[in-house]
């Protein structure tokens, strides 16, 4: 037996040769990678001279993609853990509104408003998860309920308190705060100024900011996106907890029987999703200086779309954070690219749908070709 074991460990006549390249390609993010290349090729060919690839244009779609990435990372881990969250969009609206109410209406220091808001969001995320776990209801239904509830409060609260649905003035309140720049600031400003002076990127030719570089720094939003992607990727693939996430989503019952604390994993993932949504909200409020009742509408779908384009299975147990990030990039580039390319804007949704479908089908198809499954 031992002889044959060693023997077959070396070669198994029932397995055709697989090239290492092919093997390296069999990963969830493959479709996302191919899609990214395809999308960039397309826009480089058809919208190159529209300004999409100058400094300003690149910053434009980078920011939009970074937004998607932030919520996609949360949605991705949650989806791999076998659940999903339709209340992301409402949570964005709600968190933003809370910060505005705390900092403007109640005049708390902005750092306190931010911290308390994060605490509330995490609590709501945990509540979501707890209800899902305790009742055994599908997360679709539970989070759909929270979609309505949170949006309702986001509309109701400011109206009762301030008699408006947009609360502005957060920028003034955030002046000099120590925490706010972490969400609303920019980095590398010196570098961009230097690039502008050196003529590497364009400078403003007219208007109030004449002489300044058109892009004057990397917004914290992008930094957050990168940090979250790295965190999510390491968590998922390199840690014990990552194994638990896969297990909980793959088969919760089996995982539980093997001693994985499935409930804890799922609740934590709901909290992480809420956390990501709140980061999104805080960055937005800090950038725009106001919170509105309509912020974040439909963002839950965009997050889910990005994750699925990135190769995750909607049913859980399979996927990758890098894939989700590429999905978000594709989504952001396509969305902005259509505007650069000057596509009739009421057709925008049609393109979005077609590209979503195309990307996902391509994804599945490529995976099948390469893995050889049928």
């Amino acid at each position, binding site marked *: 037996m031992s002889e044959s074991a060693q023997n077959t460990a070396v070669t198994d006549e029932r397995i055709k040769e697989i090239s290492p390249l092919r093997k390296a390609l069999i990963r969830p993010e493959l479709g996302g990678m191919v899609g990214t290349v395809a999308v960039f090729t397309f826009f480089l060919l058809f919208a190159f001279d529209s300004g999409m690839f100058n400094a*300003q*244009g690149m910053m434009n779609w980078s920011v939009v993609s970074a937004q998607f990435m932030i919520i996609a990372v949360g949605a991705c881990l949650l989806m791999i853990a076998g659940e999903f969250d339709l209340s992301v969009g409402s949570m964005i609206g709600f968190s933003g509104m809370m910060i505005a109410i705390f900092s403007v209406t109640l005049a708390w220091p902005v750092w306190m408003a931010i911290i308390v808001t994060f605490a509330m969001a995490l609590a709501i995320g945990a509540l979501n998860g707890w209800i899902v776990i305790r009742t055994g209801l599908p997360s679709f239904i539970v989070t759909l309920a929270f979609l309505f509830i949170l*949006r309702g409060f986001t509309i109701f609260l400011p109206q009762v308190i301030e008699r408006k*649905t947009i609360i502005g003035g957060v920028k003034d309140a955030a002046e000099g705060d120590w925490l706010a720049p972490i969400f609303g600031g920019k980095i590398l400003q010196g570098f961009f100024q230097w690039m502008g002076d050196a003529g590497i990127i364009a400078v403003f030719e007219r208007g109030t900011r004449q002489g300044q570089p058109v892009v004057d720094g990397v917004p914290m939003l992008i930094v957050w996106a990168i940090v979250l992607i790295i965190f999510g990727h390491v968590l998922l693939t390199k840690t014990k907890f990552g194994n638990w996430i896969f297990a909980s989503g793959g088969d919760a019952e089996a995982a539980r029987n093997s001693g994985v604390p499935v409930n804890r994993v799922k609740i934590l993932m709901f909290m992480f999703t809420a956390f990501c949504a709140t980061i999104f909200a805080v960055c937005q409020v800090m*950038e*725009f200086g106001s919170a*509105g009742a309509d912020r974040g509408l439909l963002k839950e779908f965009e997050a889910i779309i990005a994750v699925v384009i990135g190769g995750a299975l909607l049913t859980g147990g399979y996927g990758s954070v890098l894939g989700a990030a590429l999905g978000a990039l594709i989504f952001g580039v396509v969305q902005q690219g259509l*505007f650069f390319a000057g596509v009739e804007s009421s057709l925008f949704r049609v393109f979005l749908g077609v590209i979503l479908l195309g990307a996902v089908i391509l994804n599945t198809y490529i995976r099948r070709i390469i893995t050889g499954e049928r």
Partner: protein
Amino acid sequence: EGEKYILVSHAPDSDSWWNTIKNGIALAGDQMGVEVEYRNPPTGDLADMARIIDQAAASGPNGIITTLADYDVLSGPIKSAVDSGVDVIIMNTGTPDQAREVGALMYVGQPEYDAGFAAGQRAKGDGIGSFLCVNHYIVQPSSQERCQGFADGLGIELGDQMIDAGQDPAEIKNRVLAYLSANPDTDAVLTLGPTSADPTILALEENGMAGDIYFGTFDLGGEIVKGIKSGVIQWGIDQQPFLQAYLPVVVMANYHRYGVLPGNNINSGPGFVTADGLSKIEEFAGEYR
């Protein structure tokens, strides 16, 4: 005393501009000592709005104040309400003719197309030849009438100068940036309310066109007022939503109590708000203005 009036709008829950309307009826209700309610279809679906008017009529109020966002859809329910003894005043959207047609007491508002047209003519006078219309609520007919009116006022084709901007501020901002960088020789920007105006201001600040490009907007809000003050925005078209909500309640209450009724419709707008005389507007923007 204690009459009950219901205001039905066509706006989805999240549309921030309607806030002024809510404040307007609330104040009128307090002052007149009547009971007022605000109703709207949560998603902005006009067919749902028709059901709400039916429902409002069934609950037996003294009067209904409603918009006439689509004559076809809403005329039936409004006529039924009128016929079953409920008095109706049309506000905001619709035209005086349509209001008379459905048997309403009067019309208070600003016809959207006309307002857009007037703005277009004003911009033409300022030498504008092309523009970008940032439409944040494209499925709503009145939003389009504004852009169309503006284009007609300028005497040009609307074409693809209107973009579907969505409602997310970052997306609006970045779409405006994308459009302006793909079409750098655009003369003017027209926004349709605070939802699209606020991010557009930021977009213009970012690409350095703030104060440089001609910028007009419908409907006021906090940031818009600041923009007008700082010269980023040339003018805002104020249709004075407060009056659209406040006046019908007052008119109706007095009609029911004393039988008095103005003999004409009331045009609450359009009024062009420019940098002169902003102080009151500044104080109450988004609340009563």
